[in-house]
């Protein structure tokens, strides 16, 4: 352990890219290369090995490996060792440990708050020099704006991470039931909570027995897979405030209380529900079983909501909104960062890999296979992806992925991301508590109790 008078007084000559040496201009944009990182003119000829920690399991991992193999074919002297760390908590812990041990991988996948944490250890590099490099740079305009904004919210406004695997939420509904109930779910406009209230009147059957799969009714009208997203989205729509990137918790206000009270009534009359209603983590089983008529979940999880035997038809639409004036859809999914404990060659190789992975056709291919969304406009526009978006045959294996993607794009105007902050309380904690709050509300606690507990836990 070294002792320093003030660890925040970092020697900025030595660590020009340390978080403490950067001005915090509030997530504002940086234009041009800051000149922090030395970008090599060309990859050296010696072999370069980079390690890439990710979180993808067997199938996504295999797909990633295919890209890597292609990449390695293009750059024969670069070897990429891609290693799955399991889940997000593990990758974060392992990376933190690796940083402390001074023994990091070359690049990692992670959420913004992970990267914000790594930044405290001076462990990631800003990518701006690469982004604006003549040889290796990318055209930022080609990237989905909110993805960029999310990755620019670090101190100094530098991009310490780069968008990689992105997803959002969509809603599925049981078309057959709606048909039977004589309701048509509009596809030309965003569904509102008011719609839901009306439909609930006809479709929610208080005496519904679980598993009975009545033709035209359900136990609950709508399920929200992620209680965190439910809270965050709703609080935004109600202008309740969530957090800011300084880590301030902004939920303790009347708007939030109102929102929660509203939701509470909808819980009470079985309009809204959470997977908890069935002791599950996701509502897909009960959606398939017909217990719930609609379900909000991640676009990447669409296939779990499709009845395997095609028992009923599934419709996919954007997430319902409370207030059409302040619409909000979560944008989530990990980004990728390059660690600082690396050589220039490794950095460049990593950057090349990042750009390779996010290349239009690759980001599109990745998106189609995994249920994520392309990070580039050009990816979205690519012929393959456009073809994918136009799939309209329910027999096509990508049909529902396509529907989900369409729903996603319908809402990408109002994508919102979580402000990232690290520290004693992280943005992940806030998100976690948001979920807890929603669940407790569902469990019967009052709006005030729920908020109080959230505030208390987040130590605001």
């Amino acid at each position, binding site marked *: 352990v070294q002792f320093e008078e003030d660890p925040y007084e970092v020697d900025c000559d030595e660590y020009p890219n340390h978080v403490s040496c950067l001005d915090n201009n509030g997530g504002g944009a940086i234009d041009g290369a800051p000149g922090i990182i030395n970008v090599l003119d060309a990859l050296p000829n010696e072999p370069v090995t980079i390690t890439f920690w990710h979180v993808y399991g067997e199938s996504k991992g295999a797909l990633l490996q295919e890209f890597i193999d292609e990449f390695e074919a293009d750059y024969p002297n670069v070897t990429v060792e891609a290693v799955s760390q399991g889940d997000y908590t593990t990758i974060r812990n392992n990376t933190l440990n690796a940083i402390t041990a001074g023994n990091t991988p070359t690049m990692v996948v992670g959420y913004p708050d992970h990267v914000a944490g790594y930044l405290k250890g001076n462990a990631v590099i800003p990518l701006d020099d690469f982004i604006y490099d003549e040889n290796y740079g990318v055209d930022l305009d080609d990237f989905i704006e909110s993805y960029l904004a999310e990755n620019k919210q670090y101190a100094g406004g530098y991009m310490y991470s780069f968008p990689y695997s992105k997803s959002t939420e969509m809603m599925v509904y049981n078309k057959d039931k709606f048909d039977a109930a004589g309701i048509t779910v509009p596809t030309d406009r965003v569904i509102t909570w008011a719609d839901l209230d009306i439909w609930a009147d006809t479709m929610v059957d208080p005496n519904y027995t679980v598993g009975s799969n009545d033709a035209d009714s359900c136990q609950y009208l709508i399920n929200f897979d992620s209680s965190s997203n439910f809270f965050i989205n709703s609080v935004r729509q109600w202008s309740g405030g969530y957090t800011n990137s300084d880590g301030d918790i902004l939920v303790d206000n009347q708007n939030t209380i109102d929102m929660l009270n509203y939701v509470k009534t909808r819980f009470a009359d079985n309009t809204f529900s959470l997977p908890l209603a069935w*002791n599950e983590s996701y509502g897909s089983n009960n959606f398939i079983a017909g217990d719930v008529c609609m379900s909000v979940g991640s676009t990447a999880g669409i296939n779990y909501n499709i009845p395997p035997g095609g028992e009923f038809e599934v419709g996919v639409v954007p997430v319902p909104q409370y207030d059409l004036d302040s619409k909000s859809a979560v944008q989530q999914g990990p980004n990728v960062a390059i660690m600082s404990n690396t050589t220039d060659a490794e950095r460049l190789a990593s950057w090349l890999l990042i750009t390779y992975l996010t290349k239009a056709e690759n980001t599109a291919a990745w998106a189609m296979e995994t249920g994520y969304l392309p990070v580039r406009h050009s990816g979205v526009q690519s012929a393959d992806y456009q073809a994918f978006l136009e799939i309209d045959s329910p027999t096509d294996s990508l049909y529902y992925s396509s529907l989900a993607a369409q729903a996603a794009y319908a809402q990408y105007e109002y994508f919102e991301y979580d402000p990232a902050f*690290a520290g*004693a309380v992280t943005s992940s904690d806030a998100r976690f508590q948001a979920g807890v709050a929603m*669940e407790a509300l569902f*469990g019967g606690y009052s709006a005030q109790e729920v908020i109080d507990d959230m505030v208390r836990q987040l130590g605001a």
Partner: protein
Amino acid sequence: MLERQNNLKALFYLAPAMVLLSVFTFYPLFNAFFLAFLRDYEFLLRSAKGFTLFGNFKNVITDPDFGIAMKNTSIITFISVPISVIIALLISVALNSVKKLQGAFQTIFFLPYVTNAIAIGMAFAFIFHADYGLLNTILGWFGINPINWVGLNASWSNAMFALLVYTIWGGLAFKIMVFLSGLQSIDKQYYDAARVDATPRRRVLTKITIPLLSPMIFYITVTSFIGAFKAYRTIIGMFGETLRPPGTLSKDSLITIVGLVYDALAHADATGKMSEAAAASIILFSITMIFTLVQMQISKRRVHF
């Protein structure tokens, strides 16, 4: 044992374990202790601003969850350990006394040790399910209404009950194995003598078996208490990251002291959080230590070597 001291020889025998322990146990331990007294420790940079005697401890103790953690830890410890030790003891003794099917039973009782954690989680979810769970079904036979054990908004005490069952279940296999191996080293002659002396079975158990097994009982008790003070995985296994029944707030949490440690460790990148983890560990350590010392003191009289 010879009365004469032989420090050199002891050193020889202790050296391999000690070298390894020094590197992989003592050193990390001192390291952890040390962290608890650093002010504003930055884990990632491994630097601190100076020392503080109680600062980190104060942070831990003033944590709103600390009291809850203390309560939960004590309850888990003082209920699950005695019960599981007694059950394991009875099972081992019973197992040791039967001939038929002994091997089969032994294998069965070992199974928890090799059973996949996810399967265990699923099975317990089924056991405690409010609607169709095994436990409520059985209770139903006795005319008892279904109880919400671990479901939505289950009460703290129900959840704790389920957790205790789960904890006890999880600890049986190991204890049974230890007791069985201990029972093997009891001279059968004592049982002959006891039979001739017309000793009722219960007295054979309490007056012969238990005292002669006391070294292993002591071992199991000490290590189980230590283990139970460190309870955490079981709670994660049962309730997931929230450490409580779904739909409840933090006052219903089943968090333990180690839960606090984990919580702090999960924020290793935050200033001073590692120190808090260390401080919480030391608090846990102190409680456990006092308790272990008491046990050792009692055992001096009770444990027959």
